[in-house]
C-alpha cells in the first residue's frame, strides 16, 4: 500500500514535470545513474527521444554523486525502493545477481547469440547460465596521451613500442640544478590507471597471463610478471623518467603540462579537452618488442532490477533495447566521449580514425576486462607492492610474491561461497 501510494506520488510528480506528455503517460519507470554532467545530459537526450517513440512510457531519471552512488543503490534495491533500470559498474554485477536483485534480460528480445556476435567480446562477462543480465551502452579503454609541445621541443615522435616509450621519456624528462625532477617523461602511479596497465597490458606483453580460472587464480608471480614489474619500476629507479608522487596526481601533472606522456582512460578526454593552453594527442598503448598489444577495458552496464514487474518490466525491456541501440551508442560517444560497445558502431571508418577516440576504439579490439572481486582492494595490493620496493627497500621478487599471495587471499575469500 505504502509503495503504491509512493509510486502514485512519484508518477504524479513526473507527470507534472512533463506537462505535454502527461495525458498519455501510462507506465512510469525509474532510471538511476551516478552524476556526471555529460552522462546525465546524454541520458536526458536519450530519454526524450525514447519517450517520443513510446508516448505511453515515462522515464524518470535520478542521479547521485559518484561517491554515494554505490551505497545508495545497494541500500535502495534490496528495500524495493529503487529504480527499475539501473546503471551498475560491471564489477558489481555478480553480487547483484547472487542477491537476486536484477533480472535476466528476456532471450526473445536480447538473444544471447546475437549479443555474442554484435558486441565487443568483453561484454560476455555479463552472461550467466546462457542469459545476459546486463548490457553496456559504452565502454572505456586505455591509451597513451602525449603533450605535443614537449615532444616537439625534444624532437621526438610519440612512441609505438615500450623501448621507444623509454627513449621518449628520457628525452623529455627535465631536472633542476639539484637534480629534482621538474617535468616527468611519463607519469606513473599504481593508484591511478597504472595498475590496469600492469595487470592486463604489461604482464601479457612480457609473455604472461595475469590470472587463470576465470580471474580466480593469481598468476603473475612468474618470470613474465617479474619482467613486467622490473620494466615498470625501472622507469622510476633506473631511467629516472618518472616519479610516482610527482605533483600529487598523474593526471594533474599532465594537465599542468609538466608531463610528456600519461596513460589514462577515455573518460579523461572530456576534462583535458577544456584545458586551455595544453596541446595534446592520443596514441595506442605502446606495443611490446615482439609487437604484442594489449589493453584494459571497463564499462558501466544497465540492468533491470527485480522491482520491475508486469508492464513496468515490459517498459524497462523497451528502454533497455533503446539505450543499447546503435543510435544511443553514437550519441553517447558524441556527448560523453565514451566508446560504443559494438564494433558495428565503434569500428566505422569515421570513429576508428578519429584523432582522439580512434586509439581507444582500436584498443578495444585487443582489450581484456579484469573480473575484480574487489577492485579497490586488488588495486591496493599493487600499490603496496610498488611502495614496498620504492620506499621499503624490499626485493622486487619478494614483493611480487607477497602481492600475488595477498591478492589470492582476496579472491579466495570472495569466491569461497
Amino acid at each position, binding site marked *: 500500500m505504502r509503495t503504491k501510494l509512493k509510486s502514485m506520488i512519484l508518477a504524479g510528480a513526473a507527470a507534472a514535470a512533463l506537462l505535454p506528455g502527461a495525458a498519455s503517460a501510462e507506465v512510469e519507470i525509474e532510471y538511476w545513474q551516478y552524476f556526471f554532467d555529460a552522462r546525465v545530459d546524454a541520458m536526458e537526450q536519450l530519454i526524450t527521444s525514447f519517450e517520443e517513440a513510446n508516448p505511453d512510457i515515462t522515464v524518470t531519471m535520478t542521479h547521485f554523486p559518484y561517491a554515494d552512488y*554505490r*551505497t545508495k543503490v*545497494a*541500500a535502495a*534495491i*534490496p528495500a524495493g525502493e529503487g529504480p527499475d533500470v539501473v546503471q551498475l559498474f560491471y564489477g558489481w554485477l555478480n*553480487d*547483484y545477481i*547472487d*542477491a537476486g*536483485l536484477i533480472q535476466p534480460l528476456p532471450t526473445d528480445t536480447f538473444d544471447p547469440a546475437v549479443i555474442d556476435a554484435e558486441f565487443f567480446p568483453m561484454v560476455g562477462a555479463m552472461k550467466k547460465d546462457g542469459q545476459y543480465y546486463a548490457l553496456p551502452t559504452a565502454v572505456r579503454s586505455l591509451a597513451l596521451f602525449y603533450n605535443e609541445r614537449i615532444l616537439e621541443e625534444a624532437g621526438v615522435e610519440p612512441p609505438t613500442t615500450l623501448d621507444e616509450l623509454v627513449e621518449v621519456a628520457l628525452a623529455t624528462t627535465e631536472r*633542476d640544478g*639539484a637534480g*629534482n*625532477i*621538474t617535468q616527468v617523461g611519463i607519469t606513473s*602511479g599504481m*593508484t*591511478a590507471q597504472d595498475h590496469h596497465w600492469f595487470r592486463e597490458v604489461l604482464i601479457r606483453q612480457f609473455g604472461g597471463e595475469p590470472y587463470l580460472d576465470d580471474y580466480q587464480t593469481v598468476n603473475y608471480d612468474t618470470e613474465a610478471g617479474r619482467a613486467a614489474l622490473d620494466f615498470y619500476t625501472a622507469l622510476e629507479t633506473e631511467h629516472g623518467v618518472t*616519479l*610516482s*608522487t*610527482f*605533483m*600529487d*596526481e598523474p593526471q594533474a601533472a599532465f594537465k599542468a603540462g*609538466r608531463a610528456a606522456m600519461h596513460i589514462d582512460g577515455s573518460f579523461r578526454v572530456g576534462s583535458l579537452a577544456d584545458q586551455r593552453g595544453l596541446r595534446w594527442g592520443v596514441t595506442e598503448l605502446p606495443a611490446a618488442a615482439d609487437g604484442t598489444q594489449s589493453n584494459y577495458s571497463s564499462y558501466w552496464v544497465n540492468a533491470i532490477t527485480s522491482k520491475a514487474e508486469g508492464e513496468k518490466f515490459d517498459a524497462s525491456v523497451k528502454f533497455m533495447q533503446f539505450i543499447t541501440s546503435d543510435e544511443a551508442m553514437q550519441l553517447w560517444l558524441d556527448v560523453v566521449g565514451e566508446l560504443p560497445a559494438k564494433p558495428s558502431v565503434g569500428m566505422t571508418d569515421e570513429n576508428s580514425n578519429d584523432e582522439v577516440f580512434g586509439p581507444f576504439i582500436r584498443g578495444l579490439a585487443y582489450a581484456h576486462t579484469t573480473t575484480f572481486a*574487489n577492485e*579497490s*582492494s586488488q588495486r*591496493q595490493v599493487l*600499490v*603496496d607492492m610498488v*611502495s*614496498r620496493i620504492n*620506499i*621499503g627497500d624490499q626485493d622486487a621478487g619478494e614483493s611480487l610474491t607477497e602481492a600475488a599471495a595477498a591478492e589470492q587471499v582476496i579472491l579466495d575469500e570472495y569466491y569461497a561461497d
Partner: protein
Amino acid sequence: MFRYRDLTIRQKQIVWAWIFLAIPVLFYTVIRFYPTGNAILISFQEWNLLGSRTWTGLDNYTKLVNDPVFWKVFANTFLYLLIGTPVSLLISFVIAYHLDKLRFGHSFIRMLYFLPFMTSAVAMAWVWRWFYQGVPIGLFNNFLAGMGIAQIEFLNSTTNALPAVLAPAIWAGLGFQIIIFMAGLRSIPQSYYEAARIDGVSWWTVLWEITLPLLRPTIVFIVVFSSIGFLRIFDHVFNMTTNNPGGPLNSTKPLVLMIYDTAFNSFDMGYAAAQTVVLFTILLLVSLLQLWLLRADR
C-alpha cells in the same frame, strides 16, 4: 482508573518530568541505541549490504585478531593519541598562558588562533597535502630546494607520513583548546597570585604550585576531549591520502579509516561492525577513565 487530578503534586512532577524526558529518550533510542545495538548484532554476522545476513559467530573477531593490518592500524591509532594529545596540550597551554598576560590586541590574536578550528577540515587537509608535495609544487620542498637542501618525503614515507598528517590535525584543534585553557586561567582567583607576590615566590613556583593544580579540571577535560578526537581521527588522514587511503603501506591508517574502507569499499559490513565494536570499547574505556579522574578530583 488513572486520573491525573488524583495524583499528588510529587507524582504530577514526575509525570511532567517524564513527558519532557520522553523526547530526548526517544531520540536517543532511535538515533543512538538502536543503531549501536544493531552494529553489535551485525558484528556477529556476514553481510554485504545486498544479500541476506548470515550468522557467523565470532568469525569476524577471529579474523580481526589475526589480521596484521588491524594491529598496524591499532598501533597507528594510539600513536595519533600518544603524540597528538601531549603535543597539542603543551602548545595550547603555552599559547594560552602567554596570551592571557597580553593586553594589546588580545581579542584579535585570540581570533586568529581560533580561526583554524572553524575552517573545514577537508579544505585544510588538502592545502597541507599540497604544502607537503615535492618540487615543483610543494611549498616546503620548494623552500628547501631553494636553500639547496635535499627534499624531504613528507607523505611518501612510512616514518614521516604519520607526523605529517598529524600536524595539521593538531593545529586545527589548537584554537578550541586555547579558548578552554584561557577560560580556566581566568577562573583562578587573583587573590592567590597576589598572596604569592607578597610572599615573593618565583615565577616557576606560581606556575607549578598555583596555576597548574587549579587548572586540573580544565586539563582533564581537554585531555579527554582531545583523546577522543585523536582516537577518531579520519578526515585529515582520508583527505591527505585519498589516492592511497591510510598509506603508504598503511603507515597512516587509523581505525576509523579501516572501518570506512571495510564497509564502503569492500562492503564487508560484519567485519566493519566488529572493528566498530572495538573502537566503541576503546572510547568507552577512555570516557569511563574520565569520569573516574573527575571523581577522584572531588
